[in-house]
């Protein structure tokens, strides 16, 4: 099966060849490297930019204005914070111009902890992103969703932020992308650049097909009766694993993968909470003014009288960064044991 990084690459290739992508660009995105996570190896429209995030976002906006379809990358979301004004401009141009212009661009950026990345390769960005208007914000938790969400992002005429969980970049999917060769060694030989000199290398693209994950649709990863767990990205994978473990102890959790963080699938979450009466939102962004708190508010508004216990958020500790030593990361970013503890505690709470 394709890894998440390979899925992104396949989606970009499909975008270039079928959906009008004109430019895939960012720091180290073009040859020879093809992206720090190899996501843009071998693409015909990939190019390297100056080391200037503001220039990257500004150029993407210009390309979009002039009829192109840019997919720009910020190398790590940790380096996006000097561009928030520009993200706002991308998101408000349609409204401020009274519909005259719109902004068909995709911004990709790797997010989250889990790779011993220290303070500046561990940031989460969904909380601030969801506070910016006009953007659709997605985060896949597996390769096939990455492919399908990225195609939807490319096809959308509005700005879309595609956040890829760093910690899952090398994780293999468990479902084939339509058109993906069944043998993963074959895929590797076809599309992974060789080690060493790549100047004459050309990828041999498999005939991947159109496959979209629609925006705003959560996926029920596991059905359950006792509590609802809402997550996305790397934490979703952890939550699903923990839920499986806890099932053995008789705690039957329903796990939803939000996939689209904004606009999110309120209907699916409300329906699940109405059934279970208990909600735990798990993400790894820091906990003060966290997107999960928005989910909690909407659930409290809509399902207050169905709640059997206070809805909970398990998120990153409010510290200035994820420290490099494992002791820091372990104690500031949700881990399987803290997720399990939160699920147990919530299941045990009586109304």
């Amino acid at each position: 099966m394709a890894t998440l990084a390979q899925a992104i690459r396949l989606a970009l290739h499909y975008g270039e060849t079928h959906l009008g992508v004109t430019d895939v660009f960012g720091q180290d995105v073009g040859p020879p490297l093809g992206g720090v996570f190899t996501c843009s190896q071998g693409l015909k429209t990939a190019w390297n930019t100056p080391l200037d995030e503001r220039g990257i976002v500004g150029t993407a906006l210009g390309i979009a204005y002039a009829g192109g379809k840019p997919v720009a990358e910020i190398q790590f979301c940790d380096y996006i914070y000097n561009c928030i004004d520009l993200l706002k401009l991308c998101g408000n141009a349609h409204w401020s111009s009274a519909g005259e212009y719109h902004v068909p661009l995709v911004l990709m950026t790797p997010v989250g902890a889990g790779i011993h990345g220290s303070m500046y390769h561990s940031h989460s960005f969904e909380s601030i992103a969801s506070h910016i208007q006009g953007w659709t914000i997605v985060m896949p938790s597996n390769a096939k969703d990455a492919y399908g969400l990225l195609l939807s992002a490319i096809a959308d005429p509005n700005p879309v932020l595609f956040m890829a969980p760093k910690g899952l970049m090398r994780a293999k999917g468990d479902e084939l992308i339509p058109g993906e060769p069944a043998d993963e060694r074959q895929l590797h030989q076809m599309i992974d650049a060789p080690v060493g000199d790549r100047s004459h290398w050309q990828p041999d693209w498999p005939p991947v097909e159109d496959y979209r994950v629609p925006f705003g649709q959560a996926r029920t990863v596991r059905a359950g009766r006792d509590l609802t767990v809402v997550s996305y990205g790397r934490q979703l994978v952890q939550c699903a694993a923990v839920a499986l473990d806890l099932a053995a102890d008789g705690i039957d959790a329903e796990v939803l993968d939000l996939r689209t963080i904004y606009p999110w699938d309120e209907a699916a979450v409300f329906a699940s909470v109405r059934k279970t009466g208990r909600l735990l939102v798990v993400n790894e962004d820091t906990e003060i003014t966290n997107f999960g708190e928005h989910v909690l508010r909407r659930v409290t508004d809509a399902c207050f009288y169905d709640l059997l216990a206070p809805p909970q958020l398990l998120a990153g500790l409010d510290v200035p960064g994820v420290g490099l030593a494992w002791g820091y990361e372990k104690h500031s970013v949700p881990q399987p044991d803290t997720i399990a503890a939160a699920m147990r505690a919530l299941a045990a709470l009586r109304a």
Partner: protein
Amino acid sequence: MQPTLPVHNRSDDTVLTPTFVPGPSDARWMPPALDAALQVRLHDLMVKARATEEMLIRMMRTGHGYFWIGGPGEEAYGAALGLLVHKGHGPAYDYLHLHYRSSAVVLAMGSEPIDLLRQMRSTVTDPYSKGRNFVNHFAIKPWNVVPVTPTIETQYLMAPGTALMQRRHGGIGCSIVTGGDAGSAEGDFYSAMNWSTRPGSELPVLMLVAQNGYGISTEASTVQNTPHLHQRADGFRIRNARVDGNDPIASWHALVEAMDYVRHERKPFVLQVNCSRLYGHSSSSGANRHDEPDCVQLYEKRLVDDGLATQTELKLVWDKWNSLLSDALKVVVAEPMPGKEHVLQHVWYRGPAGN
């Protein structure tokens, strides 16, 4: 092609007044020759812009708008620029990344003054922002005028993007970006120069810096060490020059030459236009008339001296625009204002992809 305008020599402190060099021959577009008729037309457009701005200020004073900011003092180079734009939609044509003192540019391109009055009054008929943005914040897609950003200097970051599409498209379309002198202190000004000079990917960007000596209350020369901002382009080996932006003829020639270079060499050019800020920064500082050279008055004297117009003819131009503006105001004040039903319009675009 031989460039006709020399790279600015940093030790040469004189203001550049280039002599006219015929524009490039291009199958699709050529700058009009600056004959007598065009000199008169330039005046007409300058008055169109000035009269409109003065109406906007009156509207602000009489409660027909909350806030005014605009371009009195920038009509001379603005009208010339508006006429020289290769106007149309898509990368075959020029893109305009304008700042909030560019009324003369869009009015010379053919915009209707009434639309500026609409934006001033924030009516629902305001075509640029539906009453959402301050006046002089344009967005005109058929002419590639991209939305004017309220954040200073961010427009410079976008120009390389449109210019990249133009470079690929071929032809003579270029990306024109304007901004103020104080605003050039943002790193974005330099980013634009850097992105426009990537080796092998040089971009057709014409960067204008309107040097009026101020940013709000702050004398630009007290916070930036340069009498001549265009020289900042020296560090990027970008051709640059400056011109008396109060002189429409000099501006015309300088623009023709700079554009000629940008269009055909497909490389950037930085042009500083020295101009006045005739009514101060905005209505926040009173929008009172300042004692600075007035490009319209100076030009009217010159037209009369050169025998190209009489005082009576000039007055007729003013009367024409003023009466058109009074009529326009009557229309605008009767137009509806946005209400609750408009708030959530245009958050998302739901039409076809592509731009």
